[in-house]
Each structure stands twice: as structure tokens, then as C-alpha cells.
């Protein structure tokens, strides 16, 4: 039994303490996330224009104005300047001292409309700040608590019937967590499964196999490799999580939407009971592929056969989000290779019935055990086939 752990540790050490793993395996996804976040911030910052706004008030409502409420980061305050006349405001606009100016007519309170003069398109953050400024001043005689509520607007919380799940504008990000977790898992599954397949092929190519199997049984060897591979994947995911969690903890004080992030216990259950067996299932299938082929590039087509069903839920994302309890969604939740992503996608949108999670987990575990058996058998039959591919019908043949 200890040999199994030696194989697992060797497999883990060989790949994790390797420059390629650090560069490609670890940094690729965080870098991708960083680039995506950077792009989002770039787009937001392009929308932020802190050039002052002007206004001409004929209504007298802003004669002695209260300051504008502070905007939420990353938005920055836009100075709001009064002008006596439209001509003065226009001159400032032409001189580039302001980005736009509003004109409140004398009968603004009765007609409810105002005009805005600007050169280019007025961006939403500046517009919102002016409306908040106007609303705060219109409500200056109202109880400040009520005034503040009115300025903040309605907070609609969508809640599940059993009260276990809810979502609002403050924690909308939680819907994304299972989806992001699913993508991360699948990337990890394929990258580490790829290592495993490559390792098996290399051991065949460099003839190490023949030495190894006179020291350890094929089943122990294959199980050790799969354990090592799963540990590599979990290391990868854990470190990716660190890359994501640490910035969230650092930025949560300055970004309100990050404060609402929480992971539902059900999502954790899915990860442990469905994703983990799925991980082992795919690893074992990759190992089986590695055992049947003689060169790594031969395996790519076979990998495609496995990866296609895994990505099907993303192709059907509209259907799964629109109707997360449809028969198709339930069916995909129970099919071994589609289950992981389907369940995680549905988890963001609905309350998954416990029986579906339990049944899917049992199916995943059974399939993972079957895949390990298959990998062991393919390995036994294919380990010494140098330069000759093992046919799958030989793997499934009785002898």
C-alpha cells in the first residue's frame, strides 16, 4: 500500500515542483482573471470623467444646495458648479471647464423636466451624480433617513421559498461563484488530466514502465498516479482560490459588491461530492487513454471525446439558466460527464433537490471507480505496446 503513496508523491512532486507547472498551471488562470478584471476596470475608468458639471437653476431649488452624496467606488466625485446664466455655462462648456450643464426651468417642480447641454455623450456616472445631487436637494426638508433611502432606491431581494437562498443587487456576484468555480474546476481537470496522460505515455516511450511494473502492481501504480494527479489539481485550485480570495479580502472595503460574496454550503457539498469524483473520473479516463496510445499527440482526439460532454452545459447555458429545473437540466445533472457543470450552473439559479445531488454523486463515484478499473486494465494491456496503439475493444474484451 505504501508503494501507492510513493507513486502518488512522485507524480505530485514531479509536476508541482516544476517550472512549467508554476508558469502555465498556476499563473495562467490568475493572469487571465487579472487581465479580465483589468479590462473591466479600464472600461469603468473610461466612463469616469471628473471634469465638473454645471447647472443653471431658474427654479431656486438649488439656491443654497446641499453637497452631492459621495459616489460608490470606483466612481469618483464630479464637482457640480452653479452658473448664473446659460451664457456663462455655455462659455465654460466651450472652454472645456465643464463637461455639461443642466438647466432647471422655473417651473421644474410642476413639469418635472430639465435640459442638459453637452458636447459629447454624457457618461452615466456623471449623470447619476447630478441626479443624486438634485434628489438630495429636493428632499432636503424630508427626514434624512427617508431621504437617504429614496436616494439609494429600492433594494429588491429575490428569495427562495425555503428562505435558504437570496439574491439582491448587493450580492449578485454570488450567482457567478458556482459558474466561475465550474470553469476553474474544468480547466484544472483538463490541465492535470493532461499531465497524467502525458506521464503515462512518457513512461511507455522512455521504457520506465517495464522497470516500474516489476516493482509495483499495475493497479497500485495507476491508483497512485490518479491520487497524485487529483492532488495536483486540488493544489492548483487551492492556489487559484488564494489568488482570487486575497484580492477580494483586500478590496472588499472599497468595493461594496465584494462585501456580499459568500459561498453557499450547498456549493461546497457539490464540490466535494460531485466535482471531486468527476475529477477522479476524468483523470482515470485520461490515464486509460495514455495507456492505449504510444505518442502524446495521438491522445488529443481521444481527449476531445471526453471534453465535449463536459462542456455541453455551457453550450446550453441559456436553457439551464432560463429553466434550471427542466427535464433536460435534470438529465444532464445525472449524466456523469455533464453533471459537474450542469449542477453548478443550476446551483446559481435554483435550489437543487437533495435527491438529485445525492443520486448524481453516487453515479459520479460509481463511474470514477469504473474508470479506475478501466485505466488499470488498459494499463495492464497497453503498458508494453511500444509504437502500437491498443484497441478499445481489446480493453473491453473478456481476456
Amino acid at each position, binding site marked *: 500500500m505504501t*508503494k501507492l503513496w*510513493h*507513486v502518488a508523491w*512522485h507524480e505530485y512532486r*514531479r509536476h508541482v515542483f516544476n517550472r512549467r507547472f508554476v508558469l502555465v498551471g498556476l499563473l495562467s488562470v490568475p493572469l487571465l482573471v487579472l487581465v479580465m478584471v483589468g479590462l473591466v476596470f479600464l472600461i469603468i475608468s473610461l466612463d469616469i470623467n471628473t471634469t465638473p458639471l454645471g447647472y443653471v437653476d431658474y427654479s431656486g431649488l438649488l439656491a443654497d444646495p446641499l453637497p452631492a452624496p459621495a459616489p460608490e467606488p470606483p466612481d469618483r466625485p464630479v464637482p457640480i458648479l452653479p452658473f448664473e446664466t446659460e451664457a456663462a455655462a455655455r462659455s465654460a462648456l466651450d472652454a472645456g471647464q465643464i463637461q455639461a450643464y443642466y438647466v432647471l426651468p422655473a417651473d421644474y417642480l410642476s413639469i418635472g423636466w430639465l435640459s442638459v447641454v453637452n458636447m459629447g455623450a454624457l457618461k452615466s456616472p456623471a449623470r447619476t451624480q447630478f441626479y443624486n445631487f438634485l434628489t438630495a436637494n429636493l428632499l432636503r426638508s424630508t427626514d434624512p433617513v427617508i431621504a437617504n433611502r429614496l436616494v439609494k432606491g429600492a433594494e429588491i431581494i429575490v428569495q427562495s421559498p425555503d428562505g435558504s437562498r437570496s439574491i439582491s443587487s448587493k450580492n449578485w456576484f454570488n450567482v457567478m461563484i458556482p459558474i466561475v468555480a465550474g470553469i476553474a474546476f474544468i480547466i484544472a481537470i483538463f490541465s492535470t488530466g493532461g499531465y497524467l496522460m502525458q506521464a503515462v505515455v*512518457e*513512461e511507455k516511450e*522512455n*521504457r*520506465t*514502465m*517495464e*522497470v*516500474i*511494473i*516489476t*516493482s*509495483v*502492481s499495475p493497479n497500485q501504480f495507476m491508483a497512485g498516479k490518479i491520487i497524485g494527479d487529483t492532488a495536483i489539481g486540488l493544489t492548483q485550485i487551492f492556489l487559484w482560490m488564494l489568488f482570487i480570495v486575497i484580492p477580494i479580502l483586500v478590496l472588499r472595503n472599497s468595493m461594496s459588491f465584494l462585501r456580499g460574496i459568500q459561498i453557499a454550503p450547498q456549493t461546497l457539498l457539490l464540490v466535494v461530492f460531485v466535482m471531486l469524483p468527476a475529477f477522479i473520473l476524468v483523470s482515470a479516463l485520461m490515464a486509460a487513454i495514455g495507456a492505449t496510445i504510444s505518442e502524446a499527440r495521438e491522445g488529443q482526439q481521444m481527449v476531445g471525446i471526453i471534453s465535449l460532454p463536459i462542456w455541453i452545459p455551457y453550450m446550453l447555458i441559456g436553457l439551464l439558466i432560463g429553466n434550471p429545473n427542466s427535464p433536460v437540466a435534470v438529465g444532464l445533472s445525472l449524466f456523469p460527464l455533464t453533471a459537474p457543470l450542469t449542477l453548478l450552473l443550476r446551483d446559481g439559479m435554483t435550489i437543487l433537490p437533495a435527491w438529485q445531488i445525492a443520486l448524481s454523486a453516487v453515479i459520479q463515484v460509481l463511474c470514477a471507480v469504473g474508470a479506475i478499473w478501466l485505466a488499470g486494465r488498459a494499463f495492464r494491456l497497453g503498458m*508494453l505496446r*511500444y509504437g502500437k496503439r491498443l484497441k478499445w475493444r481489446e480493453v473491453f474484451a473478456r481476456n
Partner: protein
Amino acid sequence: MPAVDLSHIAKSFGPVKAVDDVSFSIEKGELFGLLGPNGAGKTTCLRVMLDIFKPESGSVAILGGPMNESKKDRIGYMPEERGLYQDIPLERCLTYLGSLKGLSPAEVKQRAAGYLERFDLTAHKTKKVKELSKGMQQKAQVIATLLYQPELLIVDEPFAGLDPVNTQMVMDLLREQHAQGVTIILCSHQMHQVEELCDRIVLIDHGKVMLYGALDDIRRQFSAHAVTVRTGDKIPALKGVERIEPVNGTVKLHLSPGTQPQEVLRSLVAQNINLEQFEISMPTLDEIFIRVVQGEGAAA
């Protein structure tokens, strides 16, 4: 009880019969030669022996019974196609292979140090295996096989790729192991080394046993009816000698049927020929090998 006993084993790959009704046994402590031309079925025999392949028929007993997992720790196997992890340092590779035979890293380090020194690899132990020359990798493979002090050592073409100095070193190492009581199966087609090291051999060709037994008996079986003589004198015509053939500074006397070598020796002495050497002509293992493989020899 023999260390290895193969009884009527047969193994096919598709239509090709790689091994056909092969039987031989190897005694404990013996240095045994497994010979045969390329593709004769030697490696298949070894793989059947090691339970890598299941035979279609026949039985294998190794170290007193069928192969099992615990016996793997008592057997050292060096395959013909060398197999070491290329992208890790040599020392780590040895530690891993040793751990699969039940050795701790400290034991591997201690045992490997002597061998690395002996094979002049100490300075290279931290290098990746792929950075070592072919000969160095070959020596590293020998170390990996001997590291766990096996009771049964199976070496397939151990001299391939080695220069004469290292060949001698490996031969000495095999002799040492033999002297320590290790049973050794030397699979090779380098007859000179086999002749020097082994007492008994089996020769396989086309999956069948062609020769099996003590090397001296086999050589005697294949000896021509001739004697080799080295002398400075001219050899006259002798009774019972059909033909005189000069061979590399010696003379080979081909005897007529029924003539005994002692009669020829008596004749030579009677005619005052100064003899430096007189011996019954025995074929080399190389000659026997070629004759058997070319179809002159009968199956054992």
C-alpha cells in the same frame, strides 16, 4: 528447489508464437545465460517469468512458487530497453525506484553512494538523467537494479552501449553478486561475455529451446572431431588424420572416424614433434550459436 522454473510455457502475440513450449530451470545461486538471436523470444520469456505477461499455457515458479507482489522486492530486473525518468535528477530517480522496492531515502543514499563512486557518477548525481551520456545512463540503470540487493537478478543485455572498461566493470560486478550467492540470469547475445560468466545456458530460437545445459557439455556436444596443435615443427602426415588446417598460428588436425585424439598425440610424440599446445578442438559459443541459429543444431 530451483530459483526459477519454467515448464512448457507458450505465449503468442496475434498470429506470432513468441514462445513455444519452453522449459528450463535455474538453480539458486547460479549465473545462467539466456541466449538467442534478436526476436528469438528471450525477452518474452523474461516477461513471462516476471508475470508481466501471462502465458497461454505452462507454469512458472519463481523463488519457490508463483510470482506475487512481495517477491517483486526480491527481484532486480534490468530490461533491454533502459527505463529511467529523464527529467528528474539521477539521485531522485534512484530514490524513487528504490522506494518502490521498499527502501527508505536514507538507505538508497547510503547504498547508491558506493555504486556511484565506483561507476564514476558521483559528480553527476544531481544532473537530470537526460543530461547524462548514453553510457552513463546505462551505468545508472545497473545501479538502480542492484540498489536493493536482490536475491534474483535478471539483466537483459547489460553490456550494450558500454565501453570495454565499463563492460569489464559490469562483468566484475556480476561476478561479485554471483559470489555473494545472488542468482543471476544474463540475457544476451554477446557470446564472449556469456562464455566467461555462465556455467549453464539455454539458447532459444524462434520461440523454442534449441540448447539447454552446462556450457562445457554443450561445447563438447558441438566439438568437431579434431585437435588443435601449436608447434614450431612441421607436422608430417599422420595415421588417422584426414586433413591439416592452419588456424591463427595453430594447426587443426581433422581426424578420421574412429581415431582417438590420444592416438594422434602418441604419433606426434613418437615422431619427436615439439608440442607447445595440444587440445581437443572445442567450438566457441559464438560458433555454436551461429550453427544452431543457422539450423545445424537440433532442439534440446
